[in-house]
C-alpha cells in the first residue's frame, strides 16, 4: 500500500483543515473531563496499553526466572507475586477492557453514524471506575504482595496474609467499569443507529462488540459478587466458603468461572470483530457470509455462559456434569470454526493487499486455530485430567489470548491508526514488527505445550533439569516477542508526530468509519451521514460512495 492514496493530503495543509476531535480543545482538562467517545477511547487506549507493558514486563521476569531450574533472579515468594500480578493485570486491566474500551469506544458510534454513545457522561464515569480500580489494584498488589494467582481460589485466598481485600476492592470497582461500558454499547447500538442502518448492515465489529457487551453486563456482576464474598470472608471472617464452618470452597470456583469463562469471550469476541473488518478491507471483498459471522458472535456469547465447568473437571464434578460441560465447550469450537472458515473463504479470490494488519490477521488465524484445537482437546475430560494445571493449559490459553486477541489488537491498532491519528505508520517497520511478534509468540508458547504434556505443572517455581531446554527456548522466544512490541511502540510514536498524512480512506475500505475525516471531527461527521451502501460493498457503487 503506497501512501499516495486518493485521499492523500500534502504536508503543511493542516492549518486550513477544520477542527478534529484532537485539536478542538487541547487543554488537559478538556481531555480528562471529556464526554466525547473518541477521547474516552483514547484515554482507555493509553491506560490499557500501559497495563499491557506492565503485565508484559512481569512476564519477561517470569520467563527469565525459568532459564534455570532453581533460582535465577527472584525468590519463590517474589515469583508467586509476579505470576499473580501478571495474571491480574493482563486479564482484568488489559485484555478485558482493552478492545471494547479503546477501539469499541472510538469506533462503534462512528460505525453506526451516531454523534456519541447513548450515555456520554456514563462513559467517562466508566473510564474513571476503570482507572481508580486499576490504581487500587496495582498499589495493593505492589504494597501488599498478592500471591493467590489471578483466580483467587478459596480457601487459600481467604487465608493468604497478602493484600487480598484491597486488591479485590479494586477489581470490584473495575467491574463497574466493565458493566457500564457494556450497557452503554448495547443501548447505543439499539437506539442510536443512523436512519436506514438496519442490524444486518452494521459493520461486523459492531456485532462483535454487541455480543461482548451482553457478556459484560450479565457475567461481571457474578464476578463482583464472588470477589466481594472472598473479601468479606477474608476481612470479616464470615466463612461462606470455609469447610470448617460448613462452607464449600468449590462453590467459589463455580461463581468465579461463571464470570471468568465468559470473560475469555469478552477478550476474543472484539478481536474477532477486528479480524472481520481487516479481512474484508484488505481482500476488497464482502464477507463470504455476513450472517454467519454475526450470528456466530451471538452464538459464542450465548454458549459461553454454559461452559464454565470445564475449569473444574478435577474439582469433583460428577461424570455427567463434566461430560455436559465438555460437550458444551466444544460448541464454542463450532462457532469459532464457522468464523475461521468464513474469513478464509472471504480471502479466497479476493484482491489481497498484504499490509501489516493483514499479516497480523494471518498470524491470528494460524495461532487461533492452533489454540482452538487444543481447546477442544482440553475440553475432553479424559485428556484434561492429564493436562490440568500444566503448561499445556497455559500454552492453550495464551494461544487464544495472546495469539488470538493480542495479534488482532495489533491488527486493529495498525488498521485504525490512520483514522485515529490522521497519520500513516511505516509499512516496512510494521511488517518487520509483525513478523517478530508472530515468530516470537510461537517460539515462546509452542514449547509450553510440550512442557505441559511432559508434566511441567503451572505456577511452579522450580522444575527438574530435564525441562530446561524447552524453558530456555520459551524464554528466548519471549525476548523476540518483546522486541517486536518495542519496535512497534517506536515507529508508531514516530508516525504519530512525523508520519505521512493519511487522508480519510487510505485503505480504500468500504466501511463506514472511513467516510469521515481522519482524525474525525468532534461530532464524527461534518454532515449527517448517509450510509447508502453496505459496509462491505466493494463494487463500483460502494467505491463511489466513499469518493
Amino acid at each position: 500500500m503506497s501512501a499516495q492514496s486518493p485521499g492523500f493530503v500534502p504536508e503543511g495543509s493542516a492549518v486550513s483543515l477544520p477542527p478534529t476531535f484532537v485539536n478542538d480543545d487541547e487543554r488537559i482538562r478538556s481531555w480528562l473531563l471529556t464526554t466525547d467517545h473518541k477521547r474516552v477511547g483514547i484515554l482507555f487506549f493509553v491506560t490499557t496499553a500501559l497495563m499491557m507493558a506492565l503485565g508484559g514486563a512481569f512476564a519477561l521476569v517470569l520467563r527469565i526466572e525459568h532459564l534455570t531450574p532453581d533460582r535465577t533472579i527472584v525468590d519463590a515468594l517474589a515469583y508467586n507475586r509476579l505470576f499473580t500480578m501478571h495474571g491480574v493485570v493482563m486479564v482484568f486491566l488489559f485484555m478485558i477492557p482493552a478492545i471494547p474500551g479503546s477501539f469499541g469506544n472510538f469506533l462503534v458510534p462512528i460505525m453506526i453514524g451516531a454523534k456519541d454513545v447513548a450515555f456520554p457522561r456514563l462513559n467517562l464515569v466508566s473510564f474513571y471506575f476503570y482507572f481508580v480500580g486499576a490504581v487500587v489494584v496495582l498499589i495493593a498488589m505492589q504494597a501488599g504482595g498478592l500471591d493467590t494467582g489471578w483466580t483467587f481460589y478459596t480457601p487459600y485466598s481467604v487465608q493468604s496474609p497478602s493484600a487480598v481485600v484491597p486488591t479485590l476492592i479494586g477489581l470490584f470497582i473495575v467491574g463497574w467499569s466493565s458493566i457500564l461500558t457494556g450497557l452503554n454499547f448495547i443501548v447505543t447500538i439499539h437506539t442510536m443507529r443512523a436512519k436506514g442502518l438496519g442490524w444486518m448492515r452494521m459493520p461486523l465489529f459492531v456485532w462483535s462488540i454487541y455480543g461482548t457487551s451482553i457478556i459484560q453486563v450479565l457475567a461481571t456482576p457474578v464476578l463482583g459478587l464472588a470477589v466481594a464474598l472472598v473479601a468479606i470472608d477474608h476481612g470479616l471472617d464470615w466463612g461462606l466458603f470455609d469447610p470448617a464452618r460448613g462452607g464449600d470452597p468449590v462453590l467459589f470456583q463455580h461463581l468465579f468461572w461463571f464470570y471468568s469463562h465468559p470473560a475469555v469471550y469478552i477478550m476474543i469476541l472484539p478481536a474477532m470483530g477486528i479480524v472481520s473488518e481487516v479481512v474484508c478491507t484488505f481482500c476488497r471483498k464482502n464477507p463470504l457470509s455476513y450472517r454467519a459471522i454475526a450470528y456466530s458472535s451471538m452464538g459464542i456469547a450465548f454458549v459461553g455462559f454454559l461452559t464454565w465447568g470445564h475449569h473444574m473437571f478435577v474439582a469433583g464434578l460428577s461424570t455427567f456434569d463434566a461430560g455436559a460441560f465438555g460437550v458444551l465447550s466444544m460448541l464454542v469450537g463450532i462457532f469459532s470454526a464457522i468464523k475461521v472458515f468464513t474469513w478464509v473463504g472471504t480471502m479466497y479470490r479476493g484482491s489481497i493487499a498484504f499490509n501489516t494488519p493483514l499479516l497480523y490477521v494471518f498470524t491470528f488465524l494460524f495461532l487461533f486455530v492452533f489454540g482452538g484445537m487444543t481447546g477442544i482437546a482440553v475440553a475432553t475430560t479424559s485428556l484434561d485430567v492429564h493436562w490440568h494445571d500444566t503448561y499445556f493449559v497455559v500454552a492453550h490459553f495464551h494461544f487464544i489470548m495472546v495469539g488470538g486477541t493480542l495479534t488482532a489488537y495489533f491488527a486493529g491498532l495498525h488498521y485504525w491508526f490512520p483514522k485515529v491519528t490522521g497519520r500513516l505508520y511505516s509499512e516496512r517497520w510494521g511488517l518487520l514488527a509483525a513478523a517478530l511478534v508472530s515468530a516470537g509468540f510461537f517460539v515462546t508458547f509452542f514449547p509450553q505445550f510440550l512442557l505441559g504434556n511432559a508434566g511441567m505443572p503451572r505456577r511452579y517455581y522450580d522444575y527438574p533439569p530435564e525441562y530446561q531446554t524447552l524453558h530456555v527456548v520459551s524464554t528466548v522466544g519471549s525476548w523476540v516477542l518483546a522486541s517486536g512490541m518495542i519496535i512497534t511502540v517506536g515507529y508508531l510514536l514516530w508516525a504519530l508526530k512525523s508520519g505521512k498524512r493519511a487522508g480519510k480512506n487510505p485503505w480504500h475500505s468500504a466501511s463506514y468509519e472511513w467516510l469521515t475525516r481522519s482524525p474525525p471531527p468532534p461530532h464524527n461527521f461534518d454532515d449527517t451521514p448517509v450510509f447508502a451502501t453496505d459496509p462491505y460493498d466493494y463494487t463500483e457503487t460502494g467505491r463511489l460512495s466513499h469518493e
Partner: protein
Amino acid sequence: MSDAKATHLEHFQDLEQQAHAARLGIWIFLASELLLFAGLFALYGAYRAHYPAAFGWGVDHNVRALGTLNTAILICSSYSVAKSVHMLRRGRPRFAAGLVAFTLACGCAFLVIKGVEYATHFREGVFPGGHGSFFLGQPQGLKVFYTLYFLMTGLHGIHVVVGMGLLVWLLSRILRGQLAVPHTHPLDIGAVYWHLIDVVWIFLWPIFYLTPGTF
C-alpha cells in the same frame, strides 16, 4: 422553541430517542442486577440442598408475619410508584409527587421492620458468619443459612436505600417542575428500579420466611 430544544440532549435526534435510550439502559442495568442476586440465589440453592434440615429450621425461626408484612408494603409501594409514572404522563405532577412520597414512606417502613428483625437477631446472638452465642452447639448448616440471610437481605436493603435516594432526587425534580410532559422518562427509570427491589424481595420472601421443613 428554546424550551423544546432544551428537552433533549445534543447527541440525540429527538426526545423520543433519548427516552428510549434511557428506558432500555435501565432494563439492561436491571438484567445486570438480577445476575448479581442470581449468584447468591445459586449459593442458597446449593447450600439448602446440602443442609435441608438446618435451612428448614432457620426459615421456621424467622418471623413469618414480619416478612409477609414487608412483602405487602413493597407491593403497595410498587403500585404507587407505577401510578405516579402514569399521573406524571397525564400531566398531574403534584399527584405524581404525592405518590412518589408515599412510595418513599413505604421504603422507610420496610427498612424499619427489617431493622427490627435484625435487632431481634442480634439480641438472640445471631450474627453473620456463624458468630454469636446462638450458634453454640447448632449444626453447621444454620450458620451458613444466617450468613446467606444477612448477605441477601443486606444486599437487598442496600438496594432499597439506593432506590429511595433515586426517588428523593426524582421527587425534588418533579416539585421543581423539571419533570413534566413530555419530559417524563426519568421517573420511569426510578420506578423500574423500584420494581426490581420489589421483585427481588418477592423471591427472598419464600426462601427466608415461607418454606420451613425439608422437601
